[in-house]
């Protein structure tokens, strides 16, 4: 079991509250989608869950130790961060720093390059590829260590349909193979395609956390109704 419990989490910068107080429990299985308008605090919450942002108050608890949890999770950023290395070296990087043998790391990198359709570009510099290809590498690099928890911050924002489909297929595959996925998006269609449960965030506060079906058919808050109707959420 690997659920995550968030209790009274707040993040403030100086006197301004970015998110919180947030109380949340994320279950082990499936894809949880963090939904909300731009500026609702999705990125801040994801970074807080992953440990990239320092909490001003509250706590994030795992059922395993924090040090073990840190090893069992990965993060994909909205703008893919590529090492100044080849595609193969980027993919193999998390395995190499975990001291896996070079041959194992290279074989895994090759397998993942095939999965994302970049097997012909493994020797190319990653930073010279297209945005979609770089994001596919970032997702594959995050999954190469078989993490139990994967956070993704709007990984398909501004990508074309084909690349979006490739990444969504990889995420579904990873989820079926035991990786819990928590992903933020403001793309309602994507949430409908992928989500098991939806966490709706508005002005830094969780306004709804329920199954996808319930959220789509019985939105409880005014902001959620506006969001589903395609209105501008203020």
């Amino acid at each position, binding site marked *: 079991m690997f659920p995550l419990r968030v209790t009274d989490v707040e993040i403030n910068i100086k006197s301004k509250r970015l998110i919180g107080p947030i109380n949340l429990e994320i279950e082990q299985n499936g894809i949880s989608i963090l939904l909300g308008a731009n500026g609702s605090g999705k990125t801040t919450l994801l970074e807080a869950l*992953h440990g*990239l942002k320092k909490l001003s108050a509250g706590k994030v608890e795992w059922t395993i130790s924090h040090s073990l949890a*840190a*090893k069992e999770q*990965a*993060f994909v*950023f909205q703008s893919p*961060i590529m*090492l*100044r*290395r080849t595609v193969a070296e980027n993919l193999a*990087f*998390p395995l190499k*720093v975990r001291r896996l043998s070079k041959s194992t790391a290279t074989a895994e990198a090759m397998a993942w390059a095939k999965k994302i359709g970049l097997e012909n570009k493994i020797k190319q*510099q990653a*930073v*010279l590829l297209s945005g979609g290809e770089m994001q596919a590498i970032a997702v594959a690099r995050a999954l190469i260590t078989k993490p139990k928890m994967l956070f993704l911050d709007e990984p398909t924002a501004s990508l074309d349909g084909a690349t979006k489909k490739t990444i969504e297929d990889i995420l579904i595959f990873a989820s079926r193979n035991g990786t819990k996925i928590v992903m933020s998006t403001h793309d309602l269609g994507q949430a409908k395609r992928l989500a098991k449960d939806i966490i709706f965030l508005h002005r830094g506060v969780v306004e709804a956390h329920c199954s996808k079906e319930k959220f789509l058919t019985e939105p409880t808050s005014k902001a959620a109704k506006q969001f589903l109707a395609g209105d501008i959420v203020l």
Partner: protein
Amino acid sequence: MNEILQGLIQAFWLVLSFDSELITISLRSLYVTVTALVISALIAFPLAAFLVVTRFTFRRAIVVTLNALMGLPPVVVGLIVYILFSRSGPLGVLGLLYTTSAMIIAQVIIITPLITSIAHQSMQELWSDYRNLLISINISKMQRVGTLMWDSKRALITACLAGFGRGIGEVGAIMIVGGNIDNATRVLTTAISLETSRGDFALALALGFVLISLAMSVSFATHWFGKTERGDLR
């Protein structure tokens, strides 16, 4: 103009005739500077990377001091090293004054802040790109330092070349601590200084051209073997 021409002709003649004294002096120049450069690089690169990836109280003060020390007057360094290693000095017992070792020590003091500052600047830029990824992959500080150094290697080569240029052309400090002793501590720059004071401008110029050729050859060789201009971003 005539003296420059004579100097050029004499330089060619000295090189073509494999003048033994010229070869000895040139090799000594290279030995002193390359040794100093290796020692400096071993200190500067990890120090620069450490300053990038860690936050502690006096970090900014150290960075500012290192930047200020880039303009360290070599004559003052020579004087301090002279005082330290003179017979009555605290390190006089080592008997290093007027040896190539003292010259290397002086050059290390001159070169290290320069290399550290250039390396720090380039790794700082890389760190702003890599920071979130390396933290999210949960790698140790040592691994972060290693990754930054590896992916900055081109900038580090440039830092080394800057250090080499500063060292090979340095005269003030090594004249004081080396003493410009024939067959012992005479290097190209101190030989040029001596021939100029003797009034043999043609020979001084010839040595000067050899010095320039040496510096340029090292730079070209470094770029060639380091593949720094081949556009693969490594």
